[in-house]
Every structure is written in C-alpha cells, then in structure tokens.
C-alpha cells in the first residue's frame, strides 16, 4: 500500500514514476500524553522529499499530535512520551532519540500554526527572529534573508514599506504569511502546517494554498487539513488517520479516486459517522 501509485488515476502531480526520495519516515511511532492517553498508535509512514503530504481524518484522530512529533513540540509539556522513531534523511537521524536536542530538531523542522501567531514585534523582527536565535547579527545578512523570506511567503510587496510596523497590525491572511516567512527564514528541511487556513477567508486561503504549492520546490511539506478540497488541491500524498491509527497512506489521487480501504472512502465522500 505504501507509496504504490495506481495506474489510471487522474493526471495530478507528480509523475507516477519513480517515487521521489524519502525525506523522513515515521517508524512504529506511538505517542502518550502526560495524562496517560495514548494518542498515536504505531504509525509507520514515509514523507517524500519536495512533496506535500496531507494528514486528514476526523477531529481528535491525532493529526496535530502526529505533526507536532516532527518538531518535538510535545517536549514543551511535562509527561509526554514518544515510542518508536522519526528518521530524518539523508543523515538517518532519529528525531525522537533521547540524545537529540529538540532545539536542533526545531532548527531543521519548522512549523506554522493553526492561528497566525506573530510575535508582538515588528514585521522585520518577526522574520529575523529565527536567524537571531542562531546568532546571526550581521545587518546585511539579516536584511537579505528577511526580504528573501518575505518574497518566498508572497508578502514582500505588501509590507516592504512598513517593515518596522508591528506584525499584529496585518490582516489575518497577511499574518499567516508572515508566520510562513518566519518559518522559511531559517531554511528548514521540513515545514509543518497545522490547518494553516482554518482561520482565513477563501481569498487568503487560496493565496496560502498557492504558496504551499510553490514552496515545495524548496522544502518538504506536511500539512494537516480538514478541507478535502484543500488536500486534493495542494498535496501529492495523503494519509488518512482515525483514532490514533494510520488507516491509509497513498498518493493523493489514489486516496481520492481509488482508496484501498472502505473507511477512507466513507470519510472522503462524507459518509463518515
């Protein structure tokens, strides 16, 4: 089932052969919250390089939990426990290993949240922050990188005149693109999106979706979404999760047109629950 491209699917990106190299792999990943609740159960799933992988499934099935394992966000709260591994290629590092510093992981795997969360600092400082924590102080380097990231997030033209204004003065969609720029500035290898458009209107949503399709040339993307059309539009691979289990993973066109499991089909066609 994993990665098998079915012939006859509609002509969506990418080409059916051969499958792109792996960027990361989750191997038998289980996760326990501090209260003892087991939110993920033995998830094994590949993440292909320079592709968009969508995580879908009903509310509470563990999509956010799974996503937040990739940058060890769960380490911020006491009592949370991982089992299994998330291996990052090409260096074969297990992100979840005890001797791997979560800060190092977050330097390689960046994240954009459900609600835009710019810092109450200037637009410039928001984007530059990831570089500052890495010790970059050279003004020219910072300027270049800020511009490059804002361009990458399709926000440069709208804010270039007011880089010193507070980021929270921007519109919701602009704030979310600012957060994307902030995540891009540090050249992450993987970018995680947790329902990045759920707080945005359709126009802002469209611009973020367009941006995601553009960004995959540079980074590998994992995105949680509740919107089936969005998953179909932006992703190359889709994982369907249910109650902490990975039910099915395949190319997006396969998942949407010829799912292997009845549960997947029911969910996608809206016959779920």
């Amino acid at each position, binding site marked *: 089932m994993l990665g098998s491209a079915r012939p006859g699917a509609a002509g969506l990106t990418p080409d059916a052969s051969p499958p792109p190299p792996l960027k990361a792999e989750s191997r038998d990943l289980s996760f326990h919250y501090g209260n003892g609740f087991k939110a993920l159960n033995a998830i094994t799933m590949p993440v292909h390089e320079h592709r968009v992988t969508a995580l879908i499934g009903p509310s509470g099935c563990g999509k956010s939990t799974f996503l937040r394992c990739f*940058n060890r*966000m769960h380490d*911020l709260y*006491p009592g949370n426990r991982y089992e299994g591994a998330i291996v990052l290629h090409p260096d074969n590092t297990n992100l979840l290993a005890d001797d791997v510093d979560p*800060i*190092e992981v*977050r*330097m390689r795997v*960046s*994240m954009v*949240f459900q*609600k835009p*969360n*710019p*810092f*109450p600092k200037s637009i410039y400082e928001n984007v530059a*922050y*990831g570089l*500052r*924590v*890495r010790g970059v102080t050279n003004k020219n380097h910072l300027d270049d990188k800020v511009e490059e990231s804002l361009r990458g997030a399709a926000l440069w033209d709208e804010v270039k005149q007011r880089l010193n204004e*507070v980021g*929270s003065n921007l519109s919701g969609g602009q704030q979310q693109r600012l*957060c994307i720029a*902030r*995540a891009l*500035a*540090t050249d992450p290898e993987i970018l995680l999106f947790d329902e990045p458009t759920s707080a945005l209107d359709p126009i802002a949503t469209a611009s973020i979706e367009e941006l995601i399709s553009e960004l995959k040339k540079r980074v590998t993307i994992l995105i949680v979404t509740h919107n089936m059309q969005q998953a179909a539009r932006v992703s190359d691979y889709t994982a369907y999760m249910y109650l902490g289990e990975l039910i099915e993973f395949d190319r997006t066109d396969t998942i949407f047109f010829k799912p292997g499991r009845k549960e997947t089909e029911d969910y996608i066609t809206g016959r779920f629950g």
Partner: protein
Amino acid sequence: MSYVAQTPEQIRGLIAKAKRRDVLFVALGVIALGIGFATFLALFLDMLLDGWGRLRPEFFTQFPSRRAAQAGILSAWVGTFLVMIVTAAVAVPLGVSAGIYLEEYAPKNWVTDVIEINITNLAGVPSIVYGLLALGLFVYAFGLGQSVQTAGLTLALLILPVVIVATREAIRAIPAMIREGAYAVGATRWQTVKDHIIPYSMPGILTGVIIGMSRAIGETAPIITIGALTFIAFLPPAPVGAEFPFLSFEWLKAPFTVMPIQMFNWTSRPDPAFHANAAAAGTILVFMTLAMNGLAIWLRYRLRKNIKW
C-alpha cells in the same frame, strides 16, 4: 403546554423585567462606588484644608524643628525616596526572577505547589511581623544598622510577594501560541524568556511593582520596629560627589526617617500647630502615592500599545 414565553406580550414583559434588574444593579454599583469615593474625598479634603497653610516651598526644604512653623519634611521625603530606591532595586530583580522561575522553569510538583501557596500567604502577613524579622536579621544578625539599607530591605521583603504574584500573572497572560511560536523556530528556553516572556510581561510586572511600592511608601510599623529616628536634622551623605570615584554608597548606612514616621511624630505632639504639619505631610504622601499609581497606568498603557495577540 410550554414553559417558555410565547406571545409577544409575554416576551416583552420578560425583557422589561430583566431590564429593571439591570437598572437596579447599576444603581447599587454606583452607590457602592460613591460611598468609597466620597469617603476618600472627605478624608482627603479635610486633611488638605488642615494642612493647606503649611504647603509652601520651605516645607520641603526645612528640617523638622521644635517650632511647628519652621518644621519641614526635608529629611522625611529624602529618606522615603532613598528607601524606595533600595526597595525597588532589591524587590524587582528578586521578585521578577522568582516569578519567572516559578512560571517557566520550576517542575510542576508538590514542592512548587507548597512554595506557591506560601508566597500567596506571605502577602497577607501583617507588616509588623516583617519589621520584627528585619530587626532580628538585618539589624542584629547582619549588623546592617538602623539605616536606609535595612529599611529598604525590609520593605523589599514586604512587597516581594506582590511582585512575584504580579510577574506570574503577567506571564500567564501570554498565550501558549506565542511561546510555541518562539520554540518552533528553534529558540532555547532562555532565549524565549529573554526575547518574549520578559518583554511581553513587562507592563504587568511594572504595574505590580508600582502597586507594591505605593503600599511600601506608607508603611510605618515595620520601619518603627527596625528603629527609624523620629527627629532627624541632617541628610544622608550624597550619592554623587565631586571627587573620584564620584559615586558613594555611604547613604545606605545612614540613619533616616520617612514620611509616615514624620507624620506619626507630629500627630503625637500636643501643640495643634504640629497637627497642621502632619496634615500637610499626609497630603503630600497621598499625592506621592497617586502619582505612582498614575505612572503605573501610563506605563502600562504605553507598553501595552504594541503588545497584542
């Protein structure tokens, strides 16, 4: 049939009834507020009128004197000012660090819980108890003397719980989202604290500090306990001098008096002319407190303007 009002008349009746209660509550609120405010105003005006005749420039530049008409509050306000500097210099770093530690670093276990409960309780300990503690610890055990530094340390202890609680509350008001945003780009805990937690909680911390200070400025009991003088006709040595090294900390060791003690001293004299002095000093003390609170409001407004999520 139905328990819910159905006809338009019934619905209007319900709304009218609810609105009458609304009006009633507003009226009660206004009365309560009025009582509090009128009491303060009456007391304050009475004091102001009593002391009015003494409120002139010399009052601030003269030392206390045996003759009421020549007595001033120079040593008292300078003493209050210096003691407040020591209090702030000690209470702010200690209280803010403790608050940050408890909120951001301390493991969430029963030890932390016990500390937390105790800090909250400390805020309710009568101030004279702090005075006794300071007398034993600072004056006798550490040999700091009956000095500005002892008074400053004592009042710092007194307001420490207020500063800690204000710091923690200000930190808790920062959304988890913002904190996660900082960690998500690879910030360490210290970087998150330094670049985000402290700046964003600063308005709340400052408010807490100033409220604590305006409590401390009027404290009399602990200061008397540690042995402040009630009659003092000289100033502590100046902190800045003309000769190298220009800075001097001798003032820390100087004997002192403060505004409320000066007032207390004057009110206990039989001569009514001294009572006018006490009223004038009281008026100034109230203005000092109001000014501090005004500063707190202004700072909070200024700093909050750019902090929103």
